[in-house]
């Protein structure tokens, strides 16, 4: 029996939301890092992959997906902070190409570290038992895990937004992001913010990696397939814009789910077309300023 139109729309919409959540974790980290540091982080996809692999090991050792979900981002965030403190910190004031090179370098190094540490085979991460069931959406089975992803995405988006709006850390981030000149005036806090934001950005990417692993397994191909999506999200939304990354993630998820369904011929070109269109109409992205 064919799917009813309504059931189809409903499942597809739920899919859009769960994908938006995954893409958002990646995009928001990248956009925060760019907003504060003017660094286009080419290692972001690899960081996401590292999160998935560390999550895999933690889940195996502790037997709990939830421990992995909390601890892996912290570990990866620490890696990010270390990289910022050890390398990036020496480069502020240099032009963008320096950051391109070191983050590209980091991507190569981490990619190989993962292959040496975990091997070339894809690794299985099971959906946690609690969420391995399905709900029926108008009679169609829909995985609990995906609903959880959508919900978790909403919760995290609100949480990040609240941190940005309500805390001093968030205030400093917004201020620095909107006016890089102000960074100088803020004195000692600047270093803290840069380390913090790079760490948080990497941690969020790792969170995305852990969450994606039950859907796609932990594999060496994760990095390459995700980095372009992450760029597109951030570019569409406007580099440095939190809300922009949310909108970008939604748009990309939307065209991937609905576009691929109705116009499969255009599947691989879709996101680039959207990116081009947005940039032609608004050169700085939907919510970004041009610089």
């Amino acid at each position, binding site marked *: 029996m064919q799917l009813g139109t309504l059931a189809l729309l409903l499942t597809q919409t739920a899919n859009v939301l769960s994908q938006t959540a995954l893409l958002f974790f990646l995009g928001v980290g990248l956009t925060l890092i*760019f907003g504060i540091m003017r660094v*286009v982080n*080419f290692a972001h996809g690899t960081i996401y992959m590292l999160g998935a692999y560390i999550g895999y090991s933690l889940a195996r050792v502790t037997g709990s997906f939830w421990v992995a979900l909390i601890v892996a981002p912290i570990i990866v965030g620490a890696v990010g902070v270390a990289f910022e403190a050890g*390398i990036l910190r*020496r*480069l502020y004031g*240099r032009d*963008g*190409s*320096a950051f*391109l*090179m*070191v983050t*590209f*370098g*980091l*991507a*190569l*190094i981490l*990619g*190989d*570290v993962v*292959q*040496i540490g975990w091997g070339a085979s894809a690794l299985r991460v099971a959906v946690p038992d609690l969420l391995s069931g399905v709900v029926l959406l108008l009679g169609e089975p829909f995985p609990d895990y995906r609903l959880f992803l959508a919900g978790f995405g909403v919760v995290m988006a609100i949480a990040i937004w609240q941190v940005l709006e309500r805390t001093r850390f968030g205030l400093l981030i917004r201020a620095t992001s909107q006016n890089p000149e102000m960074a100088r005036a803020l004195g000692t806090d600047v270093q803290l913010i840069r380390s913090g934001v790079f760490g948080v950005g990497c941690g969020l990417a790792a969170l995305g990696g852990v969450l994606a692993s039950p859907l796609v397994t932990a594999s060496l191909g994760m990095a*390459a397939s995700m980095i*372009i999506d992450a*760029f597109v999200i951030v*570019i569409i939304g406007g*580099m440095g814009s939190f809300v922009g990354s949310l909108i970008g993630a939604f748009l990309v998820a939307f065209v991937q789910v609905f576009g691929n369904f109705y116009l499969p*011929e255009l599947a*691989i*070109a879709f996101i*680039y*077309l959207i*990116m*081009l269109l947005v*940039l*032609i109409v608004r*050169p*700085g*992205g939907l919510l970004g300023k*041009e*610089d």
Partner: protein
Amino acid sequence: MGAWRGLILVVAVLALAPLGLPPYMMTLLTEALILGLFAMSLDLMVGYTRLVSFGHAAAYGFGAYCSGWLLINTDLSLPSAVFVAAIASGVLAIGVAWVCTRSTGVSFSMLTLAFAQLLYAITFRWTSVTGGSDGLAGIPRRPGPFGLTALTSKTGFYFFVLGLLVAAFLLCRQLVNSPFGAVLRGIRENEAKTLALGYNTRAYKIAVVALSYALGGLAGALYAPFAGFANSELLFWLLSGQVLIMVIVGGAGTLIGPILGAAFFMFAQHQLSSYTESWAIYFGMLFIFFVLFVPRGIWGSVAARLRRPAADGR
């Protein structure tokens, strides 16, 4: 002039290379020269105009597909096909540049990336012309024009590449030292001021992007008959990133530097991957090392040493 003597010496050494080097080294060297041309073309944008393209693979891949398609489907000779492909890349670039130069900074970079990826997607889909995911294979080096066969042999092709690289280098050198080049430097250092001085900066930018793409396309157009195939990897963003790194490693804004950077990149990757499977780690560390300790790139640092302290900046 010392510079001329140096150039003639290097070209002479390269011209003698086929006498001494085994065939696989010639393959490696030819590929390095082609990549050198590619990197040098990007230097016009990055080093001289500070137009950081994240999508320069578009030029390379487009040139490669053009010359590949022409050599397979028409009777054009190797030099004609290469020439036509380079021109076509330049023409394509006028369109790309017209759109991209509406933006500046990171937005410009991202627009070039978007164009390159779109081209990548088109190549992938338009199977009847591009061969889809397989790309074009069995690209011949057709002799001619006027019955000229010398360029089709391995050594002949090497000289063809070398000759074009030297010609392109001289062309670029002329350009950056010309009044046009002075304006590019102005745009690099302060575009708003250059505009205010009465230069139509956008026209200059479009022109330099077109020339850069044409030369990048020339490199790609040489690559296709060199390798015998062209595939969508040649348009992928990874190559755009790599060529940008070649430019920076070699020294942006020096023309020679990017050629060295490309050669260094090629040889290092080739050798490292022979000794260890984990070559990517060493490569990554090399990049970081360069950024930290050789910020001006290979040639930038050498040139700074060579130059007498009294000489003026850059």
